[in-house]
């Protein structure tokens, strides 16, 4: 069946998953559902200790078994030690057929590949996968399916009970002996624990893993003891320098600076740029540069931001320090400045659910005016691909891309026209992750394209005469005239992964890549 972004979703996959094809952004708007209620193991005995001596003991107490689903968060980013530590224990226990439901997986988890090959891990659910696991999935090594869902989509999948987590492991920078958890105060800090809230709410067992046990009560708790079954103290939960680095030096690459300038011009010349506007941006060089140049214009014109949201970086925290934004809503800290800024009373921690779950009674993303995003590929239908490389191999993550893109009134995607010889603007993306109906403006080093559905934005930018406007087809044609038109990548028939839309329908499928001859 062909879905709303023109992708063929085979009946066999619809049948096997019980899912529907994607039918447009607001297909599930107002459609009622019943929230999943988890099994709880109450703690009434005041002599009960939640402390366990080892991961193994925690697994045993939580009745770990073959076929179970375990979950993790990725606040420790490429410095994470928790996933590998727990999965090694599960592997050593001889358990098989595990579903690994992490919020995201990266190069830090390359060591799991042998566990995929030997059938310990047979299903993966994550925002996406970078590194060797992505290659393993694309090469057909995972027995079951990999399901890639956005941050908001993951929360939906847990609260609807589609994903049933048996044991959630929450790496916590600090914990007391009763499981009050905080993202700060320890030796391996990540600032916030936003992604794990839903695991605390929906998993049958919750195990906190910390390398810094503090006196009770560890308050104000980011995740409450009321959600936590066991606490395990280990030597190290992460590698601090890989979790949050010093703020990235502002880029000096003129190409990125140009794209940042175009992006800023787009923001300040569209109608939502007025006092109280809301804004989210990313960690790429151009995104950070554009926040810096936007700051200057806000100061010049006396325009203040109402709220900033999302994964936060120094330039966003600087806005708070300068009094240029009323509040920051934080789901993830990308640098040390953002981590330490968490204690500011106007810097609020929010859950991934409040941030982006489409099955809430409204999420923060719905209140966004602007979001600045990146993309591996954008096609002439404005569909974006942020998960699968142009060579067909899984190499990225949805993150909050589809959530914020749908939510924001003005969604801006920044990407250089060419990555080496690979055109980023193309006729059809390799795999759709974010539908074109969510994407309003594409900023490249060769010019800016506005989605023709957004006459209003196009008119505003034409009138302002502030950026080189092109059609998306013109951008594609320029790219192809320089590098040549790429051949379509060849895939096997076998489907190895699903790109799930926010609402749980199928946006696209990912197939096994064909081995090249040489």
């Amino acid at each position: 069946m062909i879905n709303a972004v023109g992708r063929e979703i085979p009946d066999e996959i619809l049948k096997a998953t019980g899912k529907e094809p994607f039918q447009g952004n607001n297909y599930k708007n107002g459609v009622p559902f019943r929230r999943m209620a988890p099994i709880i193991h109450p703690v009434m005995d005041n002599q009960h200790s939640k402390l366990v001596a080892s991961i193994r003991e925690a697994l045993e107490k939580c009745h770990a078994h073959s076929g179970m689903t375990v979950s993790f968060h990725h606040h420790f980013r490429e410095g994470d030690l928790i996933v590998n530590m727990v999965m090694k224990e599960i592997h050593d226990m001889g358990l098989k057929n595990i579903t690994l439901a992490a919020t995201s997986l990266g190069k830090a988890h390359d060591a799991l590949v042998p566990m995929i090959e030997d059938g310990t891990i047979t299903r993966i659910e994550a925002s996406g996968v970078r590194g060797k696991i992505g290659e393993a999935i694309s090469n057909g090594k995972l027995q079951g399916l990999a399901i890639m869902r956005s941050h908001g989509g993951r929360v939906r999948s847990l609260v609807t009970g589609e994903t049933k987590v048996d044991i959630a492991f929450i790496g916590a920078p600090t914990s007391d002996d009763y499981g009050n958890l905080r993202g700060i105060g320890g030796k391996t800090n990540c600032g916030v624990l936003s992604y794990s809230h839903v695991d605390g709410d929906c998993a049958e067992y919750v195990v906190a893993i910390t390398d810094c046990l503090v006196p009770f009560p560890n308050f104000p708790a980011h995740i409450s003891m009321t959600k936590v079954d066991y606490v395990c103290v280990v030597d190290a939960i992460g590698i601090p320098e890989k979790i949050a680095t010093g703020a990235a030096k502002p880029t000096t690459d003129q190409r990125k600076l140009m794209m940042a300038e175009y992006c800023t011009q787009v923001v300040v010349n569209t109608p939502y740029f007025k006092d109280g506007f809301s804004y989210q941006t990313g960690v790429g060089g151009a995104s950070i540069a554009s926040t810096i140049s936007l700051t200057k214009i806000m100061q010049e014109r006396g325009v203040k931001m109402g709220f900033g949201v999302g994964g936060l970086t120094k330039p966003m925290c600087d806005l708070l320090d300068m009094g240029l934004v009323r509040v920051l809503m934080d789901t993830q800290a990308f640098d040390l400045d953002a981590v330490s800024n968490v204690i500011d009373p106007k810097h609020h921690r929010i859950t991934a659910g409040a941030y982006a779950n489409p099955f809430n009674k409204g999420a923060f993303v719905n209140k966004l005016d602007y979001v600045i995003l990146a993309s591996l590929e954008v096609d002439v239908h404005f569909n974006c691909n942020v998960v699968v490389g142009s060579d067909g191999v899984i190499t990225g993550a949805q993150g909050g891309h589809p959530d914020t893109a749908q939510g924001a009134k003005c969604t801006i995607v920044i990407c250089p026209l060419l990555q080496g010889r690979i055109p980023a603007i193309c006729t059809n993306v390799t795999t759709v992750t974010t539908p074109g109906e969510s994407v309003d403006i594409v900023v490249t080093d060769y010019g800016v394209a506005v989605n023709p559905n957004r006459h209003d934005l196009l008119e505003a930018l034409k009138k302002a005469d502030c950026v080189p406007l092109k059609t998306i087809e013109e951008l594609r044609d320029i790219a192809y005239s320089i590098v040549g038109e790429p051949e379509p990548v060849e895939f096997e028939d076998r489907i190895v992964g699903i790109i799930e839309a926010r609402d749980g329908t199928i946006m696209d499928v990912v197939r096994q890549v064909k081995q090249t001859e040489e």
Partner: protein
Amino acid sequence: MEISKAAVAGTLESSDCMVTVEPGSGTVELDLESAVMRQFGKQIRKVILETLERLDVTNAKVTVVDKGALDCTIKARVECAVYRSNDVKDKLPWGGAIR
């Protein structure tokens, strides 16, 4: 042109390619490795073979490691390796065999 001795041109930097030519065993034998093989492998192979043909190279072992070079760079590196193999540096046939 004869490939009388081994010669190399180019680098492994992004947007470049490294071309090695060595004496062949009767035919042109091409070993191609590319960062963009799945999307541009056929095109790159075609450009290399056409360039060798223009230079009248019929007997060589050619190894190309491509890092996303454009066609113009691939041609330049192949030509450079072939002329280096012949120690030719002057009075080159610009617009003739090189085009």
